[in-house]
């Protein structure tokens, strides 16, 4: 069905100007180079293929993270979420994790989800840090509101960053938000945010050429298999 642009424009949320996230490269514990970069709307159908199997992993809260992330990405693709961005981590082109988030206002960021597909390499920690880096350093925001859906997330974000509790209900289910302020970000940056810029051209080209998605079976095994950490 053709899109009725007149109606469509009424349905789309207003958009704030958003600076792009400059790509970076991180050397992981296994020596592999993970390129972290912002993806565009047209990449979303590819990303959905990686998120889909996680919806059915009833372990470590992957089901709630996967299903919400899936709908948020669909929302971004169909212009139903305001000011959303998505960063991915790729090793040799393969998608190893992704994070998404949005600007709630010019001043406040609303952190959405972090999904690690390859586990045990701190991919999630690196990508979450990149998301905070984008909110504070490139989008120039004053604060980011965060909640955790899993104990792993709680431990990683609330305790490692020393986030401030608030009584502000978060968009994700209304749980009370924790807050990363600009000041807290810069206090913790040296131990939590890593990466080099610019990304060497050949690495960036491999990442941009194709976001390679592992098979659904591989994704399930990486996340929920015997060796899943």
């Amino acid at each position, binding site marked *: 069905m053709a899109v009725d642009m007149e109606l469509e424009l009424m349905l789309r949320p207003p958009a704030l100007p958003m600076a792009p996230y400059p790509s970076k490269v*991180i*050397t*992981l*514990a*296994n*020596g*592999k180079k993970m390129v972290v970069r912002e993806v565009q709307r047209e990449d979303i159908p590819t990303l959905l293929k990686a998120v889909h199997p996680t919806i059915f992993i009833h*372990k470590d809260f992957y089901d709630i993270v996967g299903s919400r992330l899936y709908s948020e990405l669909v929302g971004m693709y169909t212009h139903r979420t305001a000011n959303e961005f998505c960063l991915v981590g790729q090793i040799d082109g393969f998608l190893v994790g992704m994070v998404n988030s949005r600007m709630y206002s010019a001043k406040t960021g609303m952190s959405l989800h972090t999904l690690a597909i390859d586990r*045990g*390499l*701190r991919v999630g*920690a*690196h990508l979450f*840090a990149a998301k905070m880096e984008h909110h504070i350093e490139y989008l120039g925001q004053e604060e980011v509101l965060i909640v955790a859906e899993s*104990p792993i997330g709680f*431990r990683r974000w609330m305790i490692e960053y020393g986030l401030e509790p608030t009584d502000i209900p978060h968009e994700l289910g209304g749980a009370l938000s924790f807050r990363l302020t600009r000041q807290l970000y810069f206090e913790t940056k*040296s*131990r*939590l*945010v*890593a*990466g*080099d810029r610019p990304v060497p051209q050949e690495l960036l080209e491999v990442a941009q050429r194709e976001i390679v998605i592992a098979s659904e079976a591989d994704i399930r095994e990486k996340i*929920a*298999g*015997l*060796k*899943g*950490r």
Partner: protein
Amino acid sequence: MRDVAIIGVGMIPFGRRDEDTLVDMLAYASMKALDDAGVDAVDALYVANMGGGVIQRQTAIASALVDRLSLLPAAADLVENGPASGGSAVKNGVLAVASGYYDVVLVAGGEKMREVTGWRATDFVATLTHPETEYPYGITLPGMAGMFTRLYMEKYGVTREMLVQIAIKNQTMGALNPYAHVEMMITKEGVMDSPHSVVNNPPAATPLHLYDMCPVSDGAAAVILCPLNRVKELTKNLPVVVAGFGQATDTHTLAEREDPTDLKAVTLAAQQAFERAKMKPEEISVAELHDAFTILEIAESEHVGFFKKGEGGKAVLEGKTRLGGQLPINVSGGLKARGHPVGATGVAQIVELTWQLRHELPKERQVKGAKAGFSINFGGFGNNVVAFVLKRGEK
């Protein structure tokens, strides 16, 4: 006293076994050991487990296992001796056979730790510390190891690079072991040299970092013991002889050790094992040491007599403890990569050494011509230690 042989071994891959209960895992490993030996009845079981009562709220696990395996009415005992439960259970099995009271004994060790969050698992292991003078402060086993490492580095010149090289060696070997929990290789660049290693390998219990620690794992392992003189009638397998064992204890609290860098129980357990075996450390072809923390592989290799004090770390840098080196240590990947389901570990070490001494492993993991193996199972923070010397037997 009779000579004791290991005639069957079994193990299930370590990792995160959400689908299996603790008794499931013990049963699977036990069935493999029974089938490996080719026996279908035993006189007694010794079952090693530390946390069933705390984590699973299940007690009397030996009674549950003997029934599950249809080995009734065999005698069955649970052995809980902290992270040395496995070694203790094997030792009890060896004593039972050596004494002449039992002929065929199954020893199984298992632990299911991933059922709870890391916080709970850390707290569970910390319950082995002193309940008044240590536990309330929030001390953990990694914390004990951190305090020990600080002193050991200062006294013996152990460097961070030595520790990192142990982690690399053991994770490289673990990647070749299908039973290992961690199959991921790491590089020095990724965990130490790159500025990004600050995030990859953060401090965990200073001066130790994340990659100095073993993972928290689920798993089980089992062995079958019998008198050496009955091997031929019971099994077709080449026997592995329990040439010697030792066990020693040290103060419960770390603060009461006169020299906290001296792991007296390790030294004594090893001495007893070598004396009983009438062997020397130089005669060992392959060793499984208790590297719950990388520092322990160095400290134990020195305390048991493989290297002089202060030389263990250098030996690592020189490659002497790699496969193909002078004395390969933790070819299985050790606790660092195979994982550390606490009750299973001491038994898993014996399983690995048995495979090595039977020359059954694939080439990339086999210590060529291995004749004698050695293990250290380190309980508490070195307050209860079990050592074994095993020898390849004859057909």
